[in-house]
């Protein structure tokens, strides 16, 4: 569960991991000093806003439909990347839905990386077994994210 300041690089972290995973599976060297990556059967992603008048999709419904199809596909060998989990609705409802979805992913045993601004999801990650918090630091002098380690 990745959290931290806006514009701090949470989404970039997800994309970097996704690209590295896909590169590895295509026998392309990963841009890292050292990398050890498993082979996944799927790399499943919900990043960005797919809202569309033509497709009758709101921000929220696009995320929900995406997550629904990711859940239907994911196995314990899958990598799942979810940006801004539980957004697009009332924070409490979004967080409750996100926790319920995360529990399904945990039951499946897939590797999930999700970003959030919900304190409730950070609290969930701090107590639930098999879930770990990670943060992008904030440099309060320059008012921007600071990535360390």
């Amino acid at each position, binding site marked *: 569960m990745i959290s931290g300041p806006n514009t701090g690089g949470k989404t970039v972290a997800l994309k970097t991991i996704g690209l590295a995973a896909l590169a590895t599976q295509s026998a392309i060297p990963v841009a890292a000093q050292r990398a050890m990556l498993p082979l996944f059967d799927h790399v499943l992603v919900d990043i960005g806003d797919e809202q569309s008048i033509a497709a009758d999709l709101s921000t*929220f419904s696009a995320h929900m439909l995406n997550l629904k199809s990711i859940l239907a596909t994911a196995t314990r060998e899958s990598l799942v990347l979810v940006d801004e989990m539980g957004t697009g609705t009332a924070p409490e409802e979004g967080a409750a*839905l996100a926790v*319920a979805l995360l529990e399904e992913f945990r039951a499946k045993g897939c590797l999930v990386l999700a970003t959030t601004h919900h304190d409730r999801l950070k609290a969930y990650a701090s107590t639930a077994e098999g879930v770990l918090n990670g943060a992008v630091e904030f440099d309060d002098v320059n008012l921007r994210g600071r990535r360390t380690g």
Partner: protein
Amino acid sequence: MVGVPGGSSGIAIARRLGLSEEIIERARALLLSRIARGGGLDAYLHPQPRGVGSHAKADGGGATCV
């Protein structure tokens, strides 16, 4: 409805979009436990900030404590 705040009904919409009943029920239970513990609808509509982890494991662990 001018002058009235509106609820989001995110969980209900997620149900209509086809998320499994299991997930919907779990989300609803999590939301209701939060509302019940947090002082009812008024607190839900006007939540006060809380520290992360201050309520952790309060009811014996698991996801219901978040």
